[in-house]
């Protein structure tokens, strides 16, 4: 946000604007920028998912729209969804039904505020950054339950209930895994966490010690479950619950759920990148071995894309778990492991 404010200073007569406008405009502008980036990222991710799945399945995926490997296919699909009739079934709870997709999306979107894309490219550096992400990120549960309840459809209800149970359960191991990073850094600020990992790949938390490495694995699995990706996609398991909580949605509102899903995917990948893969920092420290070839935000995106690719790769090679197995994994496997990790990291911090 600071950089955007500085850029806005360049506009002639900007400083003559009233005080509240000068406070508001950078906020709005940065929101728009983040939203645009997010939409672009989502479009790209959807395209990427189609391509990854297609090639794993010996197909080609979309090939026509846009020319090169169908790059504009998702754009066309998004436009189609926006142009579609907004169907609200007769017996739904209208207010909740209309609100739910936006709340789900809000949860994903709001968390981007503290995600540091580069050394200076972030909206805000809150001192409780990671806590804020965990808190705001769970907002989407409310939206999902709202969608499930308001749809007045039994499949949606099942989807909503499953999602609630699942996301809330997996919040705990994921928060524990985040703690394995917070303890050595000693700060909740995302920027501080990245700065603690400066100086090349050996300083990243994923390679710092076995506890943080396992922490990364636990966080990765838990985050998969939090964003409802296979093998943990039981809330929208299409072979059981048709489409789960968004069964009754169509057109624009469905697009928002879709957007939120991929935005969430990018969010957890971004958080994992920030916490464990050194955020925007280079793989090899530039100053003395190699020049800084790529700007920070691009490095960040590449790292996040790598994680997202693994997510997709997993999705297209594994079957889905059952509800009880999912809960078993969360409460009996991930939770004890994450406790041990926190303990271990704590010991390291105290006695090393």
């Amino acid at each position, binding site marked *: 946000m600071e950089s955007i404010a500085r850029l806005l200073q360049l506009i002639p007569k900007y400083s003559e604007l009233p005080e509240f406008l000068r406070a508001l405009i950078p906020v709005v502008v940065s929101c728009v920028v983040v939203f645009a980036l997010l939409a672009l990222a989502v479009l790209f991710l959807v395209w990427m998912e189609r391509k990854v*799945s297609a090639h*794993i*399945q*010996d*197909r080609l995926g979309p090939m026509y729209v846009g020319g090169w490997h169908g790059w504009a296919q998702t754009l066309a699909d998004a436009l189609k969804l926006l142009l579609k009739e907004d169907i609200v079934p007769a017996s739904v709870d209208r207010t909740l039904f209309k609100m739910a997709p936006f709340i789900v999306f809000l949860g994903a979107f709001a968390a981007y505020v503290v995600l540091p894309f580069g050394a200076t490219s972030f909206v805000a550096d809150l001192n409780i950054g990671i806590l804020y992400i965990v808190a705001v990120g769970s907002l989407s549960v409310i939206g999902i339950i709202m969608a499930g309840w308001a749809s007045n459809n*039994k*499949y949606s209800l*099942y989807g909503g209930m499953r999602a609630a149970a699942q996301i809330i359960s997996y919040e705990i191991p994921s928060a524990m895994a985040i703690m394995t990073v917070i303890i050595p850094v000693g700060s909740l600020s995302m920027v501080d966490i990245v700065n603690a990992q400066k100086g090349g790949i050996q300083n990243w938390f994923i390679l710092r010690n076995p506890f943080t490495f396992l922490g990364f694995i636990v966080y990765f699995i838990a985050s998969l479950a939090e964003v409802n990706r*296979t*093998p943990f*996609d*039981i809330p929208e*398991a*299409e*072979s*059981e*619950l*048709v489409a789960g909580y968004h069964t009754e949605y169509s057109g624009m509102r469905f697009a928002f759920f879709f957007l939120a899903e991929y935005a969430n995917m990018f969010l957890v990948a971004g958080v994992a990148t920030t916490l464990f893969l050194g955020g925007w920092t280079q793989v090899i420290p530039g100053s003395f071995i190699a020049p800084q070839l790529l700007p920070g935000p691009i490095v960040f995106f590449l790292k996040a894309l790598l994680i997202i690719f693994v997510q997709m790769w997993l999705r*297209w*090679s*594994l*079957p*889905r*778990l*059952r*509800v*009880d*197995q999912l809960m078993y994994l969360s409460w009996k496997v991930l939770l004890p492991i994450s406790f041990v990790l926190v303990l271990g990291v704590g010991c390291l911090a105290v006695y090393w």
Partner: protein
Amino acid sequence: MEVDYSGDVMTLNMGPQHPSTHGVLRLELKTDGEIVADAIPHIGYLHRCFEKLAENIDYPGIIPFTDRMDYCAAMNMELGYVLAVEKLMGIQINNRVRCIRIIMAELNRIASHLIAAGTYGNDIGSFTPFLWCFRDRETILDLFEETCGARLLYNYNWIGGLMYDVKPGFEKKVIDFIDYFEPQVGNLNKLLSDNYIFVKRTAAVGILSPEVAINYGVTGPNLRGSGVKFDVRKDEPYLGYEEFDFDVPVGKGDYGPVGSCWDRYIVRIREVKESCKIIRQAVAKLTPGDVHESIPKRVKPPVGEVYMRTEAPRGELGYYIVSEGGVKPHRLKVKSPCFTVMSAFREVSRGSMIADVIAILGSFDIVLGEIDR
């Protein structure tokens, strides 16, 4: 509308339009949370009056309709029918017809089992094996198309013979396909069959004990999954299957009790390998001959009745034909394997979870066209 006041039980209608009911089947689930207290199947949404239609069409004209019962294994459907009519009329077929019929039936069995395995993976949540299976199935359909011109509904087996002789070079293509295909089964096993998540989802779920299975008239891979070694091809051979050397795989309960969903699934996978074996032998036995040799000019069976059963991919397919001496059958009753296995569904699925209901249904490998006929 009936209202159930008995506490927390909710009625969940799964189907007729549901992604994993494999067609238009409706399951009335009485659910208590995720637990299914009772699952009542309702069938008949795809009823096309096959048996009534058959009474109004002459014998050769029925063959295209038999194709449409089990559209995944049309060759086997028509094979059962033509064998029944041939038995009724006392027609002898020559060796070439016999071998080509066996090759076609076994190829179609592979194709059908590939669909079964693929869609089962899809039911469990793994989408990739589905497309891999369809990729291989496509090659089989290409072979069929080249031979008889159709990819799905063949009308290839005729009473007393075949529609066309196979094209020159067919044998080589079949062998090439088998050579290519056999390693692919291992690939599928790696991704799906031995996947621990898949095993956890399917083993110890939907146990069908041998006694219950026999009592419910379950046949085919579903019965063999329960550990009963019974295969019409072995135990009541038709078409000279007794000359072929193949095994009858049964469920052994590798990952849990015998008769689980996983056993039923793996029996199909193993059967595919046996089919490959049979095809190799049948191709070796293929002798020159005329496939139209014993096609009767006019199909008019004598008065009588016949019950002929064959081993279709989904189990024992029986045709019961009553002839009153006309050009049309007086009565044609089909004993469809999926119909009987579906009647056992309620028994098996009681007390499982919603996800398990899907797993059980998928492991039965039903085709609604055959249930409703």
